[in-house]
């Protein structure tokens, strides 16, 4: 009997897996569980994002495909680094640089005081990361404070590319059902299917406002209400503000709200900051400032100079130190902290079964068939 030669990819995979040790669960997102781990030799801390594959029957799902595809090509100090990838049984594991906290935690920690220079520093790093994505023809499509992770040296990094996709081809329609509601650009709310980097800029504008206000700026209760919320806050757009508005799928008439004086709400913000924010929240997507242009805006050149990342305010509670129950405040955060199963070296596979069990999907366990044995069936049937 012939012994099959191991498939190289598989060997590399095992090798990659054995480089890391998984420690404990850090958090849970919509389609992944994130663990703290480290590189065994270098001791470098890593975040291991294990993507849940509800069932293996259709292979990797679109979010996972998008995330690996994007992170494998992007490389920038303000974009999360994908260090390695390996699959374990039916799960895909992304080994990411470890990041202790995120911008949402920072904004919510009311014991922290933000200086204008701090906000400028975060905005600059966020825009640099976004500019890199857009130069690579990639839309993030889900920018919001908890997708800007923060490293121990204060560097801010764009993360969570599960909705990211390439753009540039006008002929190809894309879904308008994207981006978390409060950060969703008006053209998306009106059903546009041809859009560009300007949708990410709108979201950045909302984050900018949130840094100034310390609460979400445009927090609509429903998709329909979101538009009303925007119109109340920014004035109902006219065909003059936004040529082509009435041609959008849902560009029907809305109640007219006057454009309020923003300076009142954002008292304390400098004129250059407000000017940049307004350019990011311009209705007409074509006229909206781009990431590259925003970085050239006088706001970043005028004093005060942006705070050095290492000197930025940090929340006292960081991911690892957080305990269950801390974030009971609603739908924005779906995190569950749990360190029930202490150490777990990947290769023994125990941790995975435990998780499969907890997630209530006995499914992945049925699929635990030995890959090598199974692979035999994938060979061509020998000639008759």
């Amino acid at each position, binding site marked *: 009997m*012939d012994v*099959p*030669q191991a*498939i*190289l*990819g*598989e060997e*590399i*995979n095992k090798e990659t897996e054995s480089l890391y040790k998984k420690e404990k669960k850090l958090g849970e997102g919509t389609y992944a569980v994130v663990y703290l781990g480290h590189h065994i030799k270098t001791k470098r801390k890593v975040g291991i994002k294990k993507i849940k594959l509800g069932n*293996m*029957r*259709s*292979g*990797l799902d*679109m979010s996972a*495909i998008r995330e*690996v*595809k*994007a992170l*494998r*090509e*992007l*490389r920038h100090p303000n974009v999360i680094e994908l260090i390695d*990838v*390996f*699959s374990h049984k*039916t799960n895909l594991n992304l080994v990411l640089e470890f990041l202790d906290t995120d911008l949402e935690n920072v904004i919510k920690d009311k014991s922290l005081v933000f200086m204008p220079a701090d906000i400028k520093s975060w905005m600059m790093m966020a825009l640099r990361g976004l500019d*890199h994505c857009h*130069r*690579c*023809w*990639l839309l993030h499509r889900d920018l919001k404070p908890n997708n800007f992770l923060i490293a121990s040296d204060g560097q801010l990094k764009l993360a969570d590319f599960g909705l990211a*996709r*390439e753009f540039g081809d006008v002929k*190809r329609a894309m879904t308008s059902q994207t981006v978390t509601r409060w950060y969703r650009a008006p053209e998306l709310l009106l059903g546009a299917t041809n859009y560009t980097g300007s949708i990410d800029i709108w979201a950045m504008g909302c984050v900018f406002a949130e840094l100034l206000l310390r609460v979400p700026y445009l927090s609509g209760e429903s998709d329909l209400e979101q538009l009303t919320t925007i119109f109340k806050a920014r004035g109902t757009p006219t065909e003059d503000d936004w040529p082509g508005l009435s041609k959008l799928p849902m560009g029907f008439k809305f109640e007219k709200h006057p454009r309020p004086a923003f300076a009142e709400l954002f008292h304390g913000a400098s004129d250059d900051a407000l000017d940049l924010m307004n350019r990011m929240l311009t209705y007409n997507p074509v006229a909206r400032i781009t990431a590259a242009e925003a970085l050239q805006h006088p706001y970043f050149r005028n004093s005060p100079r942006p705070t050095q990342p290492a000197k930025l305010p940090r929340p006292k509670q960081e991911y690892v130190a957080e305990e269950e129950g801390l974030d009971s405040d609603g739908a924005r955060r779906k995190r569950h902290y749990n360190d029930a199963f202490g150490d777990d070296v990947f290769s023994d596979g125990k941790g995975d079964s435990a998780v499969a069990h907890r997630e209530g999907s006995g499914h992945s366990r049925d699929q635990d068939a030995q*890959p090598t044995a*199974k*692979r035999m*069936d*994938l*060979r*061509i*049937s*020998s*000639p008759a």
Partner: protein
Amino acid sequence: MAANYWESSQFQRFLLTRYELAEIESTHMIQLTNHEITHLKIYFADLILKIGKRLRTRQEIIATAIVYFKRFYINNTFYDIDPYLMAATCMYLACKVEENPHHIKHIWSESSAMFTETSPDIRFPYDIPDIAECESYLLEEMKFYLVVYHPYQVLIDESIKLSKPALQASWSIINDSYRTDMTLVYPPHVIAVAALFLSRVVDQGNLSDIEAQQWFADLNVDITDVLQVVTELLSLYKVWSEYDEAKMPELVSRYIADIAASS
């Protein structure tokens, strides 16, 4: 997707030299003649193309699937995983990566129907979960680097400067280039220029000589590489004229049986 091709994984990780490629072929394909090797490449590129046609996908997606197929068999043989299954799987993954996903069941049924239609000698005893499993081997082999650049984009970017017939001729020459392994060896713009160069031979006079010279000069590519690609394309056309699809299933089986016997 990287800011440019030179920063992409395709350039930094997957580009082989001609010598590396020759080395691989001499280890994997020892039992085959050069003509047979070329015929196998034509055959599987054609099969993937046929699946793509049935799914009505864009040419670039088909090209991505073909590149995945080639990348997988750099370090594996047809004996490790059945190339018919791999062909269907590459198409499945390429559709997802290029944001044009098809249901796995649809890929499976279109692929099986196409194999049956192509030849009664092709056996495809696989089921839907086999495609999903095969996908995981493919992903691992490619270390999850999924973005592929194609010469088509170069043509599209330059299309305003080209006449319609020149564009069409170059486009179909690029299609043909996927029947060789040149996509593993040369950057996409080199292949695009070579295709344009050849199309000029085929379709003289639509691009004035001055225009053409300017065009080639502006693109700033290594002319020796371009000529090498042209030579490889011409030899493809020669070997292709002797290609007989009906004989291929038997060649595939014989080849796999040979590897099985020698391993």
